[in-house]
Structures are given as C-alpha cells and as structure tokens.
C-alpha cells in the first residue's frame, strides 16, 4: 500500500504535461535568479546583514511583536492576534459582518492559503476573488498554488487557455497576453465593486509599524486602494527591524524571486487613509497569525522562520523540479515546505517530507538569507527516528545492519552475496522486481540501480596488480 505522499509523487512523476510546465518555469527562473543576485553590489555582505537582521528579530520575537503592535496602533491601525487559522478567519468574518462587507478582493497571500480563508468566506456568503493572475487561475481551477511565487508553475499555457474557455466562456487562446487580457477585464470589474481588500504582507517594519507589500501586476495596489476596509494577514515571523533593513530585503527578495532589481510596485502602508484623503481604506486591520510558528521557534528548525518566501530554493531543487508543488501536499512546497509543513502541521503526519530531499545543498546555496536547509532536514529526520514509532521490521533491520556494518569481514561477505543476488534480479541495469524480506517495503516505491560487477576494493586490487 502506498501512503498519500507516495501516491501524490507517483501521479506527479507520471504526468508528462506537468513536466513540460515545470521545465519551462524552473529552468528560466532558476537561471535568472542566480544571475540577478550576483549583480547586487556586495551581495555576500548584503545577505549576511539580512540574515543577521532576521535572526535578531527571532531572538526576541515576542518583544519585537509588541513593539510592532505599538507602532501599528499609533498609526491608527487595528491589531488582532490569531493563534490558528480558525481564529484568523473568525476575526476577518467579524470585521466583514460589522461593516456589512460582501465583496472581497484578495492579493496573493500564502498565510491565507494556510488558513483556508477563501472557503471560510464563501461559506459565510461572501464573494471572494483572487486577483493575482496566477492565483485567479488557481481559483478558477479550484486547485491550489504549486509554487510560492509562481502559483501555476504546474500549468502550461494550453492548460490555462482551456480552463478559461471552460470557466469564463472566452475564446480559447494559448497566447499569454490574450489570456492575461481576459483576466484583466474580469478582475477590473471586481476591483471597482469590492468593499473589502485582504492581503498578506511581505514585511512588517518594527521601527515604524510599516506594512510592506510587493506586486508586479498592480493587483496589490488595487486591493489596498479601492475597498473601504483593508485587512492584512501576516505570519508573526514577517518582521524586519528598520526601514534600512527593509531596503536590503527588498533588493534580495526581488532578485531571488523573479530576477528583477526591484518588483514593479512596492507598497508601504502606514495606517488607514487620512481624513482629508480622497482614496485609500478607511480602516486598516492587521491580523498577526501564529498557527504553529511559535512551535517551530521552540525547536531545531527555528531558523526557517527567517524565510522571506522568495521561492528560489524550489527552482533549484532536483526533487521539486520532478514532482512539482502539489506532491508536497500542503501550502508550502519545495525544500522550504519540507521543513515548514511538518513544523506547522506536526511531524507525525508529514514525516515523509524531510526525506524528500537529496541533501544536495543547492537550496542553501541560493537562499538569500543563507538558511541551512539541509541541516534542518537532517534534524527533522533524526526527530522522526527518535520520537516517532517506527515499524518493528525497520527497527530490527537497523539493528541487524548495525551489527553487520561493525564487523568488516562479515560485512564484505554479506555484501558480496547481496550483490550477486541483486545482479541476478536486475534487468537492463535496474532492479525493479520485488525483493523478498525486509527490503520489500523499501523497494515498493523505488527502483534500484544494479550493483557494479566489482566492488571498489576489488577494482583497486585488480588495477594495482595489473599496473
């Protein structure tokens, strides 16, 4: 029997269309980013300073949140605290109810993906429209984003054309410009009618209580400008200390996410509109969301809370590039998801994710804040072995292996036997047949390359003898 994770991976690996889409997306994006980060003056130093700023925030996250809250209140915003997604959704529904708000437009937000806000709003009878082009298409498909900054990395242009034809009744096209034009028409109407705007936050500046949002399309500006109420849902880890730090983070985020020097629109929000202003929201609410983050902070993977969600680690990950985002099963895919998801949702149900990595370290190389992702994956694997119950077969197997591996003569003899046995099973260089005994479980979801005819030691002796 396959686990749900193994089943998702099996489906992804067999989906040719997915591979076309993923290749087109990650190849280009990965190349652009690495070039862009290297064009930044002093890029190594900038990354060090940015990392330092994030770690400082995390070392006193509670104190920093209180200071941030104080600034927000002084700026005229209303602050709410949510322990989990349900609380966050309830807070937002109460705001909507109190003001009689019915039509919601949303900016791209991973935090509200986490809380399943759209479903909660729809259930309460509110109309919700995602306005980022990728998220809009995800919403039409009743699917979920598969990449942190490129929600439809799993779809080809042909997929999008067929979807729009079916769902909004426009003529089929595979031209991205035409497709974006269709979305613009639909969304423009939604923006003009909306009375509640909901966004995430890329950064919150402790020093000034500034909320910072970056978008390329301008949807973030629409959402924060036109509706009379704006709600920001932000994870409690999204703080940076000062405006000077924000400057650095904006530089590395744009470069690492899309390869731009700066995103087209950087929106800095410091309170609701002033009484004499013609535009802007009358009310600004900030919902500070924990939802498992404080649990992550307590442990070995606390460092992951410094993640700025640029998505760079996805584009270079050999696993992500083959299975795409949906195989990871939750909001955050890729190397970052393999750490964040078990942290937010509990290791017990997500223990396979830390294993979904080759530990090649490409993610650590590209991470703009130098998160040591492989170290954290290893510590989660360790936690799995030490704290979660393992099947009896595995425990016995590991014991036996330990005994054999510490006796070289025995090890060599048994290895020789195993090699002979596996070579006998192999076809065209691969062992794909069922293997009996303890290895059967391992082989169920893996193919094994047939062992070489000679071991390294045998080869060594043979060469030495000959030369």
């Amino acid at each position, binding site marked *: 029997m396959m686990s749900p994770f193994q089943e998702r991976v099996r489906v992804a690996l067999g989906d040719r269309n997915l591979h076309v889409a993923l290749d087109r997306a990650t190849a280009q994006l990965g190349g652009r980013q690495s070039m862009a980060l290297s064009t930044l003056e002093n890029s190594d130093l900038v990354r060090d300073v940015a990392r330092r700023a994030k770690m400082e925030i995390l070392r006193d*996250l509670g104190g920093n949140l209180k200071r941030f809250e104080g600034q927000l209140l002084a700026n005229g915003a209303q602050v709410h605290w949510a322990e989990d997604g349900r609380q966050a959704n309830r807070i937002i529904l109460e705001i909507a109810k109190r003001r009689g708000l019915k039509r919601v437009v949303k900016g791209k937000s991973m935090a509200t993906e986490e809380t399943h806000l759209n479903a909660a709003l729809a259930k309460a009878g509110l109309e919700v429209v995602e306005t980022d082009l990728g998220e809009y298409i995800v919403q039409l498909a009743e699917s979920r984003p598969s990449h942190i900054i490129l929600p439809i990395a799993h779809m080809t*242009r042909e997929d999008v054309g067929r979807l729009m034809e079916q769902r909004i009744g426009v003529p089929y096209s595979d031209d991205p410009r035409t497709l*974006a034009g269709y979305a613009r028409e639909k969304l423009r109407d939604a923006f003009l009618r909306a009375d509640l705007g909901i966004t995430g936050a890329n950064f919150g500046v402790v020093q000034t209580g500034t909320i910072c949002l970056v978008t390329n399309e301008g949807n973030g500006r629409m959402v924060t400008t036109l509706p009379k109420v704006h709600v920001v849902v932000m994870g409690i880890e999204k703080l940076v200390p000062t*405006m000077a730090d924000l400057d650095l983070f904006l530089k590395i985020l744009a470069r690492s996410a899309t390869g731009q020097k700066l995103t087209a629109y950087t929106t800095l929000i410091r309170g609701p509109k002033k009484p004499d202003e013609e*535009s*802007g929201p009358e009310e600004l609410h900030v919902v500070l969301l924990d939802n498992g983050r*404080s649990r992550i902070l307590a*442990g070995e993977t606390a460092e992951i809370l410094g993640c700025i969600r640029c998505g760079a680690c996805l584009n270079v990950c050999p696993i992500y590039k083959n299975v795409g985002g949906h195989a990871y099963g939750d909001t955050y895919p890729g190397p970052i998801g393999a750490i964040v998801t078990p942290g937010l949702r509990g290791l017990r149900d997500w223990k396979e994710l830390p294993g979904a990595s080759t530990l090649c370290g490409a993610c650590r190389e590209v991470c703009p804040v130098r998160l040591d992702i492989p170290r954290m994956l290893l510590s989660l694997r360790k936690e799995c072995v030490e704290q979660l119950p393992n099947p009896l077969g595995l425990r016995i197997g590991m014991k036996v292996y330990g005994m054999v591996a510490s006796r070289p003569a025995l090890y060599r003899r048994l290895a020789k036997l195993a090699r002979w046995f596996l070579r006998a099973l192999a076809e065209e260089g691969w062992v794909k047949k069922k293997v009996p005994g303890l290895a059967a479980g391992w082989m169920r979801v893996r193919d094994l390359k047939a062992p070489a005819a000679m071991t390294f030691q045998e080869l060594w002796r043979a060469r030495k003898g000959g030369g």
Partner: protein
Amino acid sequence: MSEARAAILARLREAQRTARLPGERPDTPRSLEFASRSPEECLERFQKELAALGVETYLEASAADVRNRVMTLVAGRRLLSWDPELLPYQLASMLTSFILGRNTREEQAAAEIGLTGCDAAIAETGSLVLLSGKGKSRGVSLLPATHIAVVRRGDLYFSMGEFFRKSAERLAESAGCTIITGPSRTADIELSLTLGVHGPGRVVVVIGP
C-alpha cells in the same frame, strides 16, 4: 482577542529558551551604509534604468518645455490628474479638462492617462516614489493605462536606502507610499512577460530642471 495575544506571547517566551538560531559570521555589521552619488551621476543612472525598464523618458531643460511636453502627451485624451496645484512647473496653468480623485470611481477608471508629480525618485532602480495625501489620489497612477509622472531633478536620490533615511519624516506623515518601478507586468503564465495587467502598461517620465 487579548487572550490569543497573551497565549501567543507566552508561547514565544517559552520557545525563545530552546530556539536553535545559529549565529551569523562574526564580523557581520548591523547595517550597511546607503549608497549616494552626485546629482549628475544620479540623473545619468536614473535615465539608464528607466530605459532598461521600458519607460519613455523626456529630459526637459525648462519649466516651459515640461509644460509643452506634457500638453503634447495628454492632448485629446481623457485625463485623470492629481490636484493641478500639486503638480510642479505650474502645469495647473495649462490643464483645462481633467478628472480628479474626487470624481466617481467609474469616471476615474474610464480615464486614459493619469498625470502625477513625484515626491522622490530613486536613480539606482529607476523608481518613482508617490506619497499619498490630499489631492494626490492613489488611483491616478494606477487606474489609467498610461501613467505620466513629472519629476523634478532635485528630487532624485541615488538609492532607496538614502531616500528612507533622509525622508523618514515625510514617510511617517503619509498613510501610503507607492514605489513604482516600470510598467505593470506579469509572467505568471509560463514566465512569458505581459505588460499592463492591472496597473499602467505604459509609464512616461518627464524630467524637468
């Protein structure tokens, strides 16, 4: 809700004790000096970056040239504008027919060109900084398909860091600050670039003396 606040803060206090937060390289500074350049270098870099972003740029020698340039650009088109009094180079004296941020949303959305001044500009990235305030409706640089921004040479900063540092007070007074770097764009469908999704697909900068 204060219950949730207390619970989260208590958990964070507890978590802080066992959190594993590896340190940074020992000689990492707390912050970096912002970059600054001479006005001439700023202007040159600004123009170069705007060109790379696909922004139409006009460098004018006098206030009268700026007015003429703007009049040529907006002639015969439906115009949405900042309060003309807030535009530089006495542009108010020339503008006759326009819509303002006070008009209905539909009227504003139907405009073809949005005309704004610019509170600051960042040379290093080719960015325009617009601070919100009375008479400076945020929709002007957002709703129409074309945005024309009039920039005074003296408002140029080299880096964003320099602007943040030197304009902290102005930033504190404004509820919203928008930093515009080129036209609205998306690459969500197979990373194929499309301009003008929700914001203006065409950005024009007129730089005056």
